[in-house]
């Protein structure tokens, strides 16, 4: 695509994000908040899976850690939301670092299975460790997000906060992809041994991207807690991971715009099912498997190759 595509796309996206609440109903705003939160996690996962070629089925756990961090710090210790968010994200990053450093030696299938186990451990413990997490009751009474006395106390304000963060993290991912670090990641994903031979610090890079993606997930989890004013580990169980994977694959794994292109429409699908909500995961599974078969690079990849063909 031409070098105009990215800035134009970003301007259009920002305009759409700003305009949407002026046009849409409260339902639209709510769905888009959720879409924004999932986009944040998907952006981080895309860097990890799409660029560095490492699979994680455990990022739902990092969302949960972020949410619980914020929930517990703001309610029990009455920290300010900003401080709690930073602490929750940093704490989750530390967990990811201590877990990631040893497990990222493992490749492909093994890593997928380990992260799946890790995610399950976090969810099980979070719903049963009553003294700390409140068990199945969860953490109620999480305050609205406030910065310097300004409270994000309505859905629309929350929408602007979430999408402000989403756009910032989206831009950051663009910067990263084009940086030396991004090139290193792509080299890593394409051929690890070759990357290493060319001087890419392989181990450090993949731990860094794992931690970064965990922090993205924690930030989303943290904001989720403020949005619902409540935290419960069951909200972050395996279905969340399935939705994230479906968004990533349908949008286009390893493409810049993939996370947002996948997350927004799929969130609409899952929130519009109404009394067919039971079919949600089945639909997600089918979309996700179908995309792997018929659109291996997702909607973004398909669009890119269509544009390529038109130009020739």
């Amino acid at each position, binding site marked *: 695509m031409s070098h105009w595509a990215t800035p134009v796309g970003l301007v259009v996206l920002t305009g759409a994000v700003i305009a949407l609440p002026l046009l849409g109903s409260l339902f639209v705003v709510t769905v888009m908040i959720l879409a924004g939160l999932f986009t944040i996690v998907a952006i981080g996962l895309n860097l990890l899976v799409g660029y560095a*070629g490492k699979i994680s089925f455990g990022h739902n756990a990092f969302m949960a850690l972020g949410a619980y961090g914020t929930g517990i710090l703001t309610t029990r210790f009455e920290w300010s939301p900003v401080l709690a968010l930073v602490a929750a994200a940093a704490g989750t990053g530390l967990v990811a670092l201590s877990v990631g450093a040893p497990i990222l030696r493992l490749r492909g299938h093994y890593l997928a299975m380990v992260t799946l186990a890790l995610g399950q451990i976090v969810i*099980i413990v979070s719903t049963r460790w009553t003294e700390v997490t409140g068990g199945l009751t969860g953490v109620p009474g999480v305050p609205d997000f406030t910065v310097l006395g300004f409270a994000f106390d309505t859905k629309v304000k929350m929408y602007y906060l979430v999408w402000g963060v989403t756009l910032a993290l989206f831009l950051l991912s663009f910067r990263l992809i084009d940086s030396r670090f991004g090139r290193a990641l792509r080299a890593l994903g394409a051929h690890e041994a070759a990357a290493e031979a060319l001087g890419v610090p392989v181990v450090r890079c993949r731990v860094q991207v794992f931690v970064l993606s965990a922090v993205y997930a924690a930030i989303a989890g943290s904001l989720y807690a403020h949005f619902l004013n409540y935290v419960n580990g069951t909200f972050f169980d395996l279905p969340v991971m399935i939705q994230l994977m479906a968004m990533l694959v349908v949008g286009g794994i390893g493409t810049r715009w993939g996370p947002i292109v996948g997350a927004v429409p799929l969130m609409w699908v899952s929130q519009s099912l109404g009394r067919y909500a039971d079919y949600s995961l089945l639909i997600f599974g089918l979309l*996700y498997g179908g995309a*792997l078969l018929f659109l291996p690079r997702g909607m973004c990849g398909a669009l890119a190759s269509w544009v390529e063909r038109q130009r020739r």
Partner: protein
Amino acid sequence: MLNLVPLLLANGIVFGAIYGINAVGFSILYNSTNIINFTQGEFVMLGGMLTYALYEQAHLPLWLAALGAIAATTAIGLLVERLAIRPLWRRQAKDWTYVFMLFAVATVLPNLVMLLISRDAHTLPAFGGAATLKLGSVTFTSQAVWVLALTLVIAVALHGFYNHTLLGKAMKASAVNARAAAWMGIPVERMVALSFALAALLGALGGIVFTPLTSTQFNAGVSFTLKGFGAAIIGGLGNITGAIVGGLMLGILEALSTAFISSLYGDAVTYAILFVILLVRPTGFFRPLVELREQEI
């Protein structure tokens, strides 16, 4: 507490035998495709839930329901290979694509079961017909004897199959080097299909003999997948005897840890064991059937 140990060991062995059967399913598929089957646990769940559906909802006799469930699960295994795996195989897709695809299948299958059969946990009546087994202070129920006997039969049969039949050797060869195997005239794709069928069949068998001991539910698959994988890793992925021994070890560890550490966290303790083993000994404790190179792990 210590006088409970024999009972805990016995329980661990029975549950571990199921993990072992499941681990054998992992190993079979790994042996012919190098794929780690994220749907293995779903086959176990399907075995239990389909038998329930045929027995309670379609009112077939138990043995017929069990046979029907085995046949149906095997057919589903073949379908998964045909619809989801073979297209990727032909496209020579990247490794991670298989993992994602099987994860997608592991999403679709339980949700179909939930929508079409039932969302509740169900159990099956014990089979009966087998004697109880008394060893010292511990009595194995007749269902537990079924589990142990089945495990033994599977281990012996597969050992013979892989080492003494042409088909078994062909399946092994296609795992070592699919291209070379194809040059030798082995129909690799058919071997892959066959291993999916065999893995599904074993999963279903395990699920059916296991369900009367506790119960099963549409979402039970993930836990079976993780535990079966853990057992397969302990046993050296691809090693059939190792898989069974790995299953027994995991079952015993699980029984002891729930009794002596905490029962509150249930499966989390077992997953933590799996986690530690993968960190410390990703190659397991037995020689894998196909030697792994360090970088392939």
